[in-house]
């Protein structure tokens, strides 16, 4: 090491070693790139902010990420167009015998990934499976109105409902629904467990390999019933848990298309000429759920006071970097028939009215409450701003408790809390925003809100076939709910997608059901 021999020039041996090293170093990146990009005509899709896809069995799936991934391999009887309208997908047409009987005529010649033809038996098998106690499907509640599924002939399915229900029909789309049609034969041959890892559907892509918490490898289903789709030979869905990595992966070209973007990084990504970002008011809502059965949120005046003391604009600006808009109800603007375009005073920031409202009720200055939240991202920021905001206006003593998402949900479900910020994304059916959350005894009504008039309006809305009248009924219900503030209606965040220049055919939707949108997407060859 002390260097006894010194070179006056470069020896032949050293030259050769150096040259070999140089060539290797130069060649390495190209090898890596080849292995990485898996060749031409391949689409890499990023699910940003998610680390888990728990199952590929649609009837068992529950998480948004489950559905966003698996929907690439399936179809529903219906589908939702980007403008929000519902049309038949695997069904060719839908007709009604009466208010509670629907007849679905299936498309002929639709092939599953295993080559079998789709028949009414597959549809019956799928829907029966969602409803069966044995399956324990987390999606069962959506289809409870179904009394009987009948395969009338090879291509005709008859759905008999116990009550007239429009939501049941919407829930037959390929979204966060659990009604994606599976192959009966494949399921019976494989068994539930094997099927959940390598499902057989009719969608544009079929499974090649599932690497849990890493990526889903799929190849084109060449017999897909929509001619010319899919446009690529293969597609990987990558789970990118770290949001910033989603941005850098897009900038570096390691992914071509992505769901969601990190709110904070939006301006930087937008500035890159190789990246297109789409932005629209999303099919989602965020709210602060209140424990209505104990102090201080058992008092309607106090709840109204909090709602009017809450500056929604500031949360949208600071917590989600302006990527959203304040809400004065549960219904997002994308559901146009029901969205309230007029002002609701109880959801407007007005410190004086808020204090006056508080004075009418049981609780005053110094009232304590804990805002339950989780993680370290914008959920936490939202909660902190919310608490500080209310304290400033009302002189209350709201504090924030941070835990992890699992504990927060568990305590929220059991109402072991004062209040908790929550919300969801990607729900397309009006009833999910009102009926599921505010009807007496409904599946998401953990705060046990109950109002007979609201229930009546919701039931009427579920049975109303005219979309305009239906929207009106839900909006009337929402009017009543908002006056009582069982939750603090907060904001809606933008639905984003981003893709690299050259990616074509992708149509963004408010629901962001990424997998179901991949069929028409092409990449530059």
């Amino acid at each position: 090491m002390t260097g006894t021999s010194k070179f006056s020039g470069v020896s032949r041996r050293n030259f050769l070693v150096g040259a070999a090293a140089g060539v290797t170093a130069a060649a390495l990146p190209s090898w890596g790139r080849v292995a990485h990009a898996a060749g031409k005509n391949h689409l890499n899709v990023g699910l940003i902010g998610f680390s888990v896809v728990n199952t590929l069995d649609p009837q068992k799936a529950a998480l948004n990420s489950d559905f966003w991934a698996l929907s690439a391999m399936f179809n529903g009887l219906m589908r939702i167009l980007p403008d929000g309208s519902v049309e038949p997908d695997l069904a060719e047409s839908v007709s009604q015998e009466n208010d509670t009987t629907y007849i679905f005529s299936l498309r002929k010649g639709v092939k599953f990934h295993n080559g079998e033809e789709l028949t009414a038996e597959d549809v019956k098998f799928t829907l029966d499976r969602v409803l069966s106690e044995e399956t324990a499907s987390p999606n069962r509640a959506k289809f409870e109105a179904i009394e009987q599924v009948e395969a009338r002939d090879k291509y005709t399915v008859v759905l008999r409902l116990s009550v007239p229900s429009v939501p049941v029909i919407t829930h037959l789309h390929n979204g966060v629904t659990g009604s994606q049609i599976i192959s009966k034969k494949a399921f019976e041959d494989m068994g539930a467990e094997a099927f959940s890892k390598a499902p057989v559907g009719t969608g544009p892509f079929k499974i090649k390999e599932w690497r849990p918490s890493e990526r889903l490898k799929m190849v084109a289903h060449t017999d897909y019933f929509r001619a010319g789709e899919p446009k690529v030979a293969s597609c990987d869905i990558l789970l990118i848990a770290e949001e910033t990595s989603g941005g850098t992966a897009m900038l570096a070209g390691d992914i071509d298309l992505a769901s969601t973007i990190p709110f904070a990084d939006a301006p930087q990504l937008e500035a890159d000429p190789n990246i297109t970002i789409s932005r629209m008011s999303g099919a989602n809502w965020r709210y602060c759920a209140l424990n209505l059965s104990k102090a201080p949120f058992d008092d309607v005046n106090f709840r109204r006071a909090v709602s009017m003391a809450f500056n929604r604009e500031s949360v949208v600006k600071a917590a989600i970097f302006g990527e959203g808009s304040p809400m004065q109800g549960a219904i997002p603007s994308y559901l146009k028939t029901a969205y309230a375009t007029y002002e609701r005073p109880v959801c407007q920031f007005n410190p004086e009215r808020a204090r006056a409202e508080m004075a009418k009720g049981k609780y005053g200055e110094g009232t304590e409450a804990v805002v339950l939240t989780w993680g370290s991202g914008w959920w936490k920021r939202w909660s902190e701003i919310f608490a500080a905001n209310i304290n400033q206006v009302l002189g209350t003593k709201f504090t924030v408790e941070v835990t992890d998402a699992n504990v927060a949900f568990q305590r929220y479900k059991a109402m072991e809390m004062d209040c908790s910020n929550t919300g969801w994304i990607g729900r397309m059916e009006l009833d999910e925003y009102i009926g599921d959350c505010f009807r007496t005894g409904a599946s998401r009504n953990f705060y046990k809100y109950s109002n007979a008039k609201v229930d009546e309006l919701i039931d009427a809305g579920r049975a109303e076939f005219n979309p305009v009248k239906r929207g009106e009924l839900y909006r009337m219900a929402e009017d009543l709910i908002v006056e009582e503030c069982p939750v603090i209606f907060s904001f809606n965040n933008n639905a984003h997608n981003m893709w690299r220049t050259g990616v074509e055919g992708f149509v963004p939707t408010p629901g962001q059901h990424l997998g179901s949108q991949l069929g028409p997407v092409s990449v530059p060859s």
Partner: protein
Amino acid sequence: MLRGCRSDWLLNEFVVRFAGIARKMEGASALGFIWYLIIRLGGALVTIAIGAVFVFILMQLIPGDPAIAALGENATDENVAAFRRIHGLDQPLPVQFWIWLSGIAQGDFGKSITLAQGYPVWDLMVQRLPNTLFIAVYALVIAVVISFFAGSIAALRQGRMSDTAATSASILGISMPDFWLSYVLILVFSLGLGVLPAFGFTSPLESFSGALVNGALPAFAIAAPMAGVFARILRAALLETKRRDYVTAARSFGFRDTFVYMHYIFRNALIPFVTVIGVQVRYLVGGTVIIERIFGIAGLGSMMVDGAFGRDFAVVQACMLAFLVFVLGVNLIVDIICAFLDPRRTH
């Protein structure tokens, strides 16, 4: 020993060492070594058994519910009850523990419930272990090579410019947070030069060259702080050993500098060096979650974190056991290496 003290010292070193081991195996000391191994392995087994109980209890103590992780917040009570029944979570704890433990005894680590429902945990581990080991070895090699040169140069040229440079570089390495360095590397090599990917990893079993390239940035990000620590330890140990009497004695015999360095200084300085490497290797297997996240490497560490967030008991327990086995294994190997390096033992 003295005859092979020129450029072929390394080869000679091996010959001498193997001859030493062979001698030991023939004689009474071989028996001693085997006994030592048996005692260590027995101790390891006891530690693993205690660890298994501890991990199981710990997982049950933390609040949260796997049913909520898997079914989402709007699952009905019936759904939750059915989920618990299907996955055996409704059984009494001792029964669950017994099922788990007897499963492990037969090589069955149970099934995932919230990470990849129904997927055997063993299969998940087999998918991820090569990635974790590959990145760990990759980072370790980079760190050892860099620190070997930096530490040696710093010690041999103490007080000179090269010492200052090497020492400053290692302090820089130690003080740069690995996640920050990761983004700097991405900025330069992925977004700037465009030669290395920013996200996505190829399993070494699928493509070794792909893994080398895709793993380069994360491996370097992990290696930099380690190299800093290693280099400083090596430098300190070398300086300490350099002043020893036996080194002066060796010099006075007229041995070449290289020979004295390799046989008298370097070899003795290696003991703390190897010990520190051993300590750091433990971190490499489970502690690189942030790097795994940034670069999208499906490793054991991030699997355990995902499992913990989802209350996937079987996954977390299996990962913890794997880490335990790994740590015990590394400890044993480090002790054996140090024993062989220590001249007092071999002579």
